[in-house]
């Protein structure tokens, strides 16, 4: 697994340095920045800084701008990482390199991990950029609990990576990236608490929140980066995030394996 990991990491790094996809980079940043600016303008100039009481009771904070900006930051990060990992195999197929890759006795997990770790470099740059912009629009990082931040970030990245495996297998099955990824992204943004608490949504839609790693990740990140006091709910959400990640991971591995087997059969037709 290690050789596939390091080989793919190096390959992606060289490709990124040689042909950096600036359009993706700017697109992801703009997504986060748009959420930030939209929230800033509507909060100040439409709602005159007034919040519904239920917002405070659902979120435990009255700092709406920090809530939304954190949502924008991590939504962009999630979208970026999901796209990097999930599009790997379908891109190989479109560029005519999938056969050559599947001919090798290499570990597929190592291959995806190599792409993900390299992709984190790019997503990380986007993440920091949006946070910096967010600071100008009211993001208030009151207490960064570093000791907790690292394991939470690791669990969050793992869960998103696992979700990307499942998304990637759907892309292969449908021979499509655009509609497949954007369907997920729209639903994910709506139900994960990016710009408003999911508790405002109907009950049945809240069920969708529970299968989105972003929902748990956002809750945890807000707790350790924008709230002064920590609660027991952090541990509970962390465990749920890891469990969800493990579930997606196994489903993703099985689906990807299945798609690898059927991809050339479907190609025939």
């Amino acid at each position, binding site marked *: 697994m290690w*050789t*596939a990991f*390091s*080989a793919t990491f*190096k*390959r992606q790094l*060289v*490709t990124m340095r*040689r*042909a950096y996809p600036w359009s993706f980079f700017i697109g992801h940043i703009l997504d986060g920045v748009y959420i930030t600016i939209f929230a800033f303008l509507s909060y100040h100039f439409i709602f005159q800084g007034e919040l519904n009481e239920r917002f405070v009771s659902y979120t435990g904070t009255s700092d709406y701008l920090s809530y939304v900006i954190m949502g924008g930051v991590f939504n962009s990060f999630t979208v970026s990482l999901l796209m990097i990992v999930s599009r790997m195999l379908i891109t190989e197929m479109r*560029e*005519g*390199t999938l*056969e*050559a*890759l*599947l*001919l*090798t*006795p*290499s570990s597929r997990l190592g291959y995806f991990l190599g792409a993900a770790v390299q992709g984190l470099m790019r997503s990380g740059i986007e993440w920091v950029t949006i946070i910096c912009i967010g600071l100008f629009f009211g993001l208030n990082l009151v207490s960064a609990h570093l000791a907790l931040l690292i394991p939470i970030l690791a669990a969050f990245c793992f869960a998103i990576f696992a979700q990307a495996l499942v998304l990637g297998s759907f892309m292969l099955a449908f021979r499509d990236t655009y509609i497949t990824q954007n369907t997920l992204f729209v639903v994910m943004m709506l139900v994960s608490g990016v710009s408003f608490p999911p508790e405002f949504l109907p009950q049945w839609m809240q069920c969708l929140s529970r299968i989105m790693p972003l929902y748990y990740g956002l809750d945890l990140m807000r707790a350790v980066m924008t709230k002064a006091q920590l609660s027991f709910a952090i541990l509970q959400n962390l465990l749920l995030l890891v469990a969800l990640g493990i579930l997606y991971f196994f489903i993703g591995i099985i689906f990807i394996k299945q798609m690898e*087997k059927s991809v*050339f*059969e479907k190609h*025939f*037709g």
Partner: protein
Amino acid sequence: MLEAKKLVKYYTMKEKSGWFARKKQQIKAVNGLDLTIKRGEIVGLLGVNGAGKTTTIKMLSTLLAPTSGTLSIDGIDALQQPEAIKRRINMIAGGERMLYWRLSARENLMYFGRLYGLRGSALKNQCDELIKKVGLAESADRPVERYSKGMKQRLQIARGLINDPDYLFLDEPTLGLDAPVARQLRGMVKDLAKKKNKGILLTSHYLEEVEELCDHVYIIEKGHLLLHDTPTRIIQTIVKDRILLVVMDRLTQEDWTWLRQELDNRGIHTQKNETDEGTQLDMTAPFDLTAQFIALTHQRNFHLLRLESKKPNLEDAIIRLAEERELL
């Protein structure tokens, strides 16, 4: 030895039969194919489009699982141990696929080498050697997107050899290449089999290539094995006619009537065309008719301008076979 026994591959296709209804249809791409490749020999796999060549290669290279049948390489069961098989095989396809265009030749080879588990100086030496072998030393660090078609194809050969495979599958390896580059590649393929003792399976639409390179040939049609023999024996079995092309001074009507009668008496089928050069005769017979025709020309002192005895080749044999089976 690579041994495939009774290989079968069915594809299930879904076709729209209404707004929401879909009809399932089963297509037999390969149907009970037996195939053997020994180390050091080049084996051809021929057939018209849709015969099942690509499906067969994909099954042999473990990319597709057969519906039934067995496949083993040097005693290792390919269905049970695909990882072990992958270390012993590789595939080279024609066209410009199977390479990362944004990477250089060296980076491509290093990447694939690592995926095959090579590392350190062994990997570096293998890459350097292959780059030199395929004549890309000067452009080894240039991105592949700036390569010509021939250069990409040579790099494909290097990629196919990165794991030093025992068996190599070549799917239209000279597709769209210039004649000198194609000739160079053919030389390379011959060396790989005869000097490096690799078993090679070759599919190509250039039948002269197959005739020149292959020790024996499998001809398949709709997934069935039609013929398996050496190219020479296939030609002898299928095309029994010999063709003689002659250009001579323009014949008078009287001479032509006499000559035609003589040729007909000997069972020689003749076609006459008047050209700027003179009279051209295309003669076909199931025997070598050169000596008989020359004897006839002596009798009337005909002046021959050109004489060409055409030996049938594999292409003639395949076309004849296809005509007989109404595939054309």
